[in-house]
């Protein structure tokens, strides 16, 4: 078995009595796109900073291709970072920004020129090398930041919420573009986000973090279909948590069904429709079960008049395989 590109072994970061990252173990495979997903304050950005070397861990070791680097300053680690605010050098042109890492590596001028042009072409900014960051749009700045991090061909690429400053449409485009670029270049990537949509679309694997720990590590389907903890279940997608025989059962709103008659098998509860939200592609039906619990059903919109109205009596049900015991 080959050495992972990046390995965290018992990494901890404490600030006084506060634990920002608690004993994290993680392996990122060569060429993998791994996402650290979690709410703000969960330790994901701190973990990224530890990998980059912006601060030292309180305990544990970090291995880059098997080499321990926890004691090395960032400029000796060979890691590319794209920051949330891009952190471009405002006094340099786009081309000079991209060339910076190569200049620091004392490459010959001719080679720098070739690689800068190549990198700018890769992010579709060929021809804008002479522009200053101030003269570029938000999306273009982001591409410069990406090219600047990629051009040094780092062992690992770190992306710190790079999409959160873009508007919605551009964000969705860049999701696909960055993920595509990453696969084409086969560059090992750690991506930090609080946006579960981004995480699901872009990642090979997702590490869901909470309170400084990794709650679950798995493929997007793993964490969505088989959440390991209640936190993961409610952080990724939406979830109904209901009581059944003294146990807690979790049911995704889109896997639940509504019917007028009692279904034959599986989980079934009688309920009253509270209100129906029309979302275009789907309808959201909010229910109050007879037990007093609330539940949500998401149904595709097939057109025609709504099947259920507020105040109606219905059966809320789910097949046994759609019920997760939590």
């Amino acid at each position: 078995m080959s050495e992972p590109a990046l390995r965290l072994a018992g990494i901890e970061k404490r600030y006084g009595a506060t634990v920002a990252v608690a004993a994290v173990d993680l392996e990122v495979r060569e060429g993998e796109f791994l996402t650290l997903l979690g709410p703000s304050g969960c330790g994901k950005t701190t973990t990224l900073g530890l990998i980059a070397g912006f601060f030292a861990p309180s305990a544990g070791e970090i291995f880059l291709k098997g080499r321990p680097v926890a004691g090395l300053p960032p400029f000796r680690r060979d890691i590319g970072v794209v920051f949330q605010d891009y952190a471009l050098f405002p006094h340099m042109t786009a081309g000079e920004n991209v060339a910076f890492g190569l200049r620091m590596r004392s490459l010959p001028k001719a080679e720098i020129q070739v690689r800068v042009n190549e990198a700018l072409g890769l992010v579709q900014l060929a021809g804008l090398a002479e522009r200053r960051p101030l003269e570029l749009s938000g999306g273009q700045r982001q591409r410069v930041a990406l090219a600047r991090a990629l051009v040094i061909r780092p062992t690992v690429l770190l992306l710190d919420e790079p999409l959160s400053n873009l508007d919605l449409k551009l964000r969705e485009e860049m999701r696909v573009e960055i993920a595509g670029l990453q696969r084409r270049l086969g560059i090992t990537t750690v991506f930090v986000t609080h946006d579960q949509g981004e995480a699901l679309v872009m990642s090979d694997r997702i590490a869901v973090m909470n309170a400084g720990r990794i709650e679950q590590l798995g493929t997007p389907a793993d964490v969505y279909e088989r959440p390991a903890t209640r936190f993961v279940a409610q952080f990724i997608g939406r979830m109904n948590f209901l009581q059944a025989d003294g146990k807690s059962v979790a049911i995704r709103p889109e896997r639940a069904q509504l019917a007028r008659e009692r279904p034959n098998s599986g989980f079934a509860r009688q309920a009253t429709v509270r209100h129906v939200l029309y979302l275009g592609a789907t309808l959201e039906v909010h229910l109050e079960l007879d037990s007093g619990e609330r539940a949500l059903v998401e149904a595709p919109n097939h057109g025609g008049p709504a099947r259920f109205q507020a105040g109606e009596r219905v059966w809320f049900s789910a097949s046994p395989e759609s019920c997760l015991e939590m």
Partner: protein
Amino acid sequence: MVTPWAALRGVVVLVYIFMLGPILITAAVSFNQSNRSQFPPQGFSLQWWQRAMAPEWVDPLWFSLKLASLTAVLSTLLALPLAFALARYRFRGREAMVALTLGPLMLPALVTGVGLLQLFQYAGLRDYIGFTALLVGHIVICLPFAVRTVAISLHTLPPNVELAAASLGASRARTLWHVVFPLIKSGIIAGAVFAFVHSFTDVNLSIFLARPGEVPITVKILGFLEFGFAPTLAAVSVITLLLPLALVAIVQRITGLGDFIYGQRERV
């Protein structure tokens, strides 16, 4: 009715009158033909300007230029590490350092001058009274200006650019050289210019630390006033006034100093 804009315009006009009026009057007086400082001037002559070019005046002027230049360079060099430490780090004794650095700003330079004079005398450094003592004193009173402007420019650095440089392989020193200094350049230059002007125009402190042959122009002018306000003095005053103004104008043209004083252009 007086609108706010009209009132503001009035204030601006008054400010200009009180700022430029004395200068223009002094300049006019220096061209008097008689040896009395009259305004409006009687006749026209350049004799007072000729006298102002004598070593008696040129030497202290040159002395002041040297003193102010050296003060500007040294206080800026001192201000850089000081501003870095104060702006970036929390350490024991930081408050004391802030007070010490900015203290001279609150203290009348006169008091600092008397204190320094006593220090030099009692410490057996009497021989250093003159240029050396003046240099030390001027650095003390100019440092707050330099530290403040550098510290302010450090705060305007875009966040993360230093981390970005580090991640791209730049050591601490190269990050400073290639990223931090270019971005705070106008702050450093502004600090140096403030220090130069403050040193060049100081009289309160200099009066205590000068000695014959090592006299700044301001002290020389003050001494000469005992004999009344001769038109020579008017000519010297105009030169003394124009020198720092010219410096500020040149620096502003080259570096866009105005950006720093009147607020930065948009930053990324």
